[in-house]
């Protein structure tokens, strides 16, 4: 009998693990999920509400893919994990045994104990069910006169964009002094503040939620703001103050948890044959400058790619390369490669360039002394992942990076390039006399 691998969670991390295990072996694979029958792209939830796509378009694989690859799918909610008996219990009372268990449980929206946080009309945006709920709570501007979004992060801005696409007035409460300023340097964050307001979103900075007020039917009627005690009438409240691992049902198991499921570098938990990956995994030891819980798509995928090797007899540590990420803020795309912190690290400094149109800017974090390149945030321009990954590996100086910026440009053909502006700003800033190099296919395609 082939080993039975059970994966709880059909998100990117669980599915990637399953796909790679199947490539490497004939093991029996079952993916369990309470959310949907098939894997879909969580990152695309917003586009369903906005009418860019339907749910079916967010499924990265056609439905026959799973049986063709002998990956069994089980819809059900796991209530208990018994690691001694190596068995799972489902909410409908049924059981399933495993030889190896992969926890790919994802996250849930944070709720910080606000009064009224469980009223009708108050919701987060994480799951397919949340999306369906939003469709019910805020179908159009007629039945939802105003929505208030609490928490200025990536999901918050997405939710604001979604609601605005149906002309619903949105008030956006952000605790920080500027949007996503805990991650982004001031210049970028300020540009985004202006961009958000230009989309007619009522952005309130330095503003905390005090409580959510109910009408007589247990529906939200208004929110109260802490600083001013102002009451804002609204029909929907979006709670988007971050996410945390979705691990409550593991409380009574023997699996050791902190904020997430604790894992070592092999992605193993304290229990043999039980692993955790994706949003729900918490690293015991730090990996570079990374956070111990990384709730992004890419890291979930990378953990899945790694874990499949381990499970198939080639133990591998999770060893992510250079950090990268991306997002989109209304009309402005964002990419980042390497590390740029909101305040430069000790011994580092920032170089910031912003275009006069106020919709493009970059920030480079570099070593103050030798100007070694540490990372870049890019808004409104697309850049090549591979090039920056290589430059980071090669420990290039920022001088080199700026001179060769044309190699990195990834905007569509005929787009105006801004490398010249950036270079001259850089020369002004550092008193250098760098010259822009022509784009070279040869450099782009040489692998280091």
């Amino acid at each position, binding site marked *: 009998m082939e080993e039975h691998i059970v994966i709880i969670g059909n998100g990117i991390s669980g599915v990637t693990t399953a796909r790679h295990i199947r490539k490497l072996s004939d093991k029996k694979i079952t993916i369990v999920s309470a959310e949907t029958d098939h894997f879909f792209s969580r990152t695309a939830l917003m586009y369903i509400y906005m009418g860019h796509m339907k749910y079916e378009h967010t499924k990265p694989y056609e439905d026959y893919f799973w049986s063709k690859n002998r990956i069994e799918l089980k819809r059900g909610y796991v209530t208990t994990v018994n690691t001694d008996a190596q068995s799972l219990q489902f909410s409908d009372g049924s059981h399933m045994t495993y030889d190896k268990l992969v926890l790919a449980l994802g996250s849930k929206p944070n709720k910080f104990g606000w009064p009224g946080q469980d009223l009708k009309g108050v919701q987060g945006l994480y799951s397919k069910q949340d999306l369906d709920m939003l469709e019910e709570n805020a179908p159009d501007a007629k039945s939802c006169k105003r929505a208030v979004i609490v928490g200025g992060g990536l999901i918050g801005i997405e939710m604001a964009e979604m609601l605005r696409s149906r002309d619903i007035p949105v008030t956006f409460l952000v605790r920080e002094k500027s949007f996503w300023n805990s991650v982004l340097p001031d210049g970028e964050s300020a540009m985004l503040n202006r961009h958000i307001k230009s989309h007619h979103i009522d952005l309130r900075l330095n503003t905390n939620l005090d409580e959510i007020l109910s009408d007589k039917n247990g529906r939200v009627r208004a929110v109260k703001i802490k600083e001013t005690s102002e009451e804002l009438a609204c029909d929907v409240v979006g709670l988007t103050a971050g996410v945390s691992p979705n691990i409550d049902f593991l409380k009574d198991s023997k699996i050791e948890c902190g904020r997430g499921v604790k894992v070592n570098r092999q992605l193993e938990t304290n229990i043999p044959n039980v692993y955790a990956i994706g949003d729900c995994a918490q690293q015991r030891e730090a990996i570079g400058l990374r956070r111990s819980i990384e709730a992004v798509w890419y890291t979930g995928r990378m953990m899945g790619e790694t874990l499949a090797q381990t499970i198939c007899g080639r133990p591998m540590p999770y060893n992510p390369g250079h950090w990268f990420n991306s997002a989109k803020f209304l009309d402005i795309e964002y990419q980042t490669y390497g590390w740029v912190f909101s305040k430069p690290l000790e011994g580092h400094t920032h170089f910031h360039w912003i275009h006069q149109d106020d919709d493009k800017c970059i920030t480079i974090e570099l070593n103050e002394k030798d100007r070694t390149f540490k990372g870049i945030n890019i808004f409104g321009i697309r850049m090549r992942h591979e090039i920056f990954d290589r430059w980071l590996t090669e420990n290039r100086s920022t001088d080199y990076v700026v001179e060769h910026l044309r190699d990195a440009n*990834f905007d569509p053909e005929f787009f105006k390039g801004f490398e010249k502006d950036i270079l001259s700003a850089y020369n002004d800033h550092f008193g250098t006399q760098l010259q822009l190099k022509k784009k070279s296919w040869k450099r*782009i395609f040489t692998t280091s």
Partner: protein
Amino acid sequence: MKAIKYTGLVLFLIGLSIFTATLFLGSFTLSKADITEFTNSRNIKSELLQSKLESAVVGQQINSVFTFSSLTRAALESANQEHKNREEWDKVVWDKPHTFSFYLAKKAGSGYVKENSGLLWWLTFGLAIIGALLFILPNVILLGAPGIKNDGIYHKASTNRGWIAWGVLIYLVGFYLLLYFMPDYVVNWTFILDPISQALNGGPASQWFVYGFLYCTVMVVMGVRMYIKYRHNKYQVLRTTSVLFFQIIFAFLIPEIMYSLNMPGYDFKNAFPLDYDFFFEWNLDTLTSSGAIGLFILVWGIVLTLIIVPVMVYFFGKRWYCSWVCGCGGLAETLGDPYRQHSDKSMRAWKIERWLIHSVLVFSLVMTVVTLYCYFSGAEAFLGIKSQWIKDTYSFLIGAWFAGVIGTGFYPIFGNRVWCRFGCPLAAYLGMVQRFKSRFRITTNGGQCISCGNCSTYCEQGIDVRAYAQKGENIIRSSCVGCGICSAVCPRGVLKLENGPEKGRINPTQVLLGNDVDLMDYVNKSNPQ
């Protein structure tokens, strides 16, 4: 702004209704002399037909083209039948009945439409154009700042296969059926455009002139919509300008002007085998009897297909033709843009696509070989295939039904590139070059894909772009027409159309960038599938 938009919509619908209503207007009368003149000018030897026509229509005023058509067609068919029974083959008139009736109707028509063609142009084309522009232009403001504007596409009856989409489908299919198979029914449309046709080529408008003029008009108006929708994207703006230029100048004006100069009208960008009748006897005869220009066209046509097309595909991909130059592509990218999301992305559709499009290519080549053999040898058939039969069959099945009725008529339900994806033999040929010998690819940006599916959804050619992007693989597909919309709609900047060195164009990837370098090397090198 919304008020302007809706006023525009109403004007457009009024224009369209009048345009449609004109089909039912007009009266048709022929005198004996008219018929004699007609039969003489068309070299018709059948007195029987002449007398049958006379007794059918002379001396009466027929107040609908439909009645006129059925009377003249009946006359033609019964005359033909008698001649066939008597084996008087030279007296049989081989014109298609509706075409025959069209020629007569063109002569016989009179009435309000014909006499007021200027006014009617304004009431139909004029109103519809102004209305459509009023509907489209406010989007500059209504759509907000430049950027991707796909909000609500799947909420609207027009773009989500709702009743409006089906209505448009029925109208378009009806239009093509009339155009291809019952041209006499649309003779009133030709009257509206007679003055413009006279000015351009010195003759009255045919149904094909109506089609050409309408085609250009629709492309320009919907091109304006493209400019507004994609104004942040220079690739789209230039591409739209390019297809408009080639349609208006190359496909429409140059051939018309050539006619007026007594040359064969030729669309210099229309390459064989899309231009499937290039090697038909009548065309070869026309070209060889048209002196230097005819010869030039003949050589150009061959060079275009054999050299220019593949060389350009090598450097730029098939997009240089399919989404920068081609008329079918041009209509798909303007009129068809609102429907691009309806192409089927399934593996099954891809399979059907490959079978179908390559069959059409083979069909067109076999037809051409048979035709050419018969042309030079004087035989009637080759390899047991009758030249006339295969040409008629191709023209009917592929030329009219596939490219027209289905290819364009079904836009609102099956997407805007049905013909280009499943049927066009030129696309099949370009695709083979693009797949195996080209510098073009859509580069995937390392590990940045979030599998959202926007790219696949908006791919008009039904390519599952995401399937490649989420594996970090470049997209190298014979069907890709390089419209650039996947790159435009991707929210993470993952896709870039580019022409680069052939080396490294295809990059099978198992483990994506961002991960442990050792793991990537190990996995990607040890099973490179």
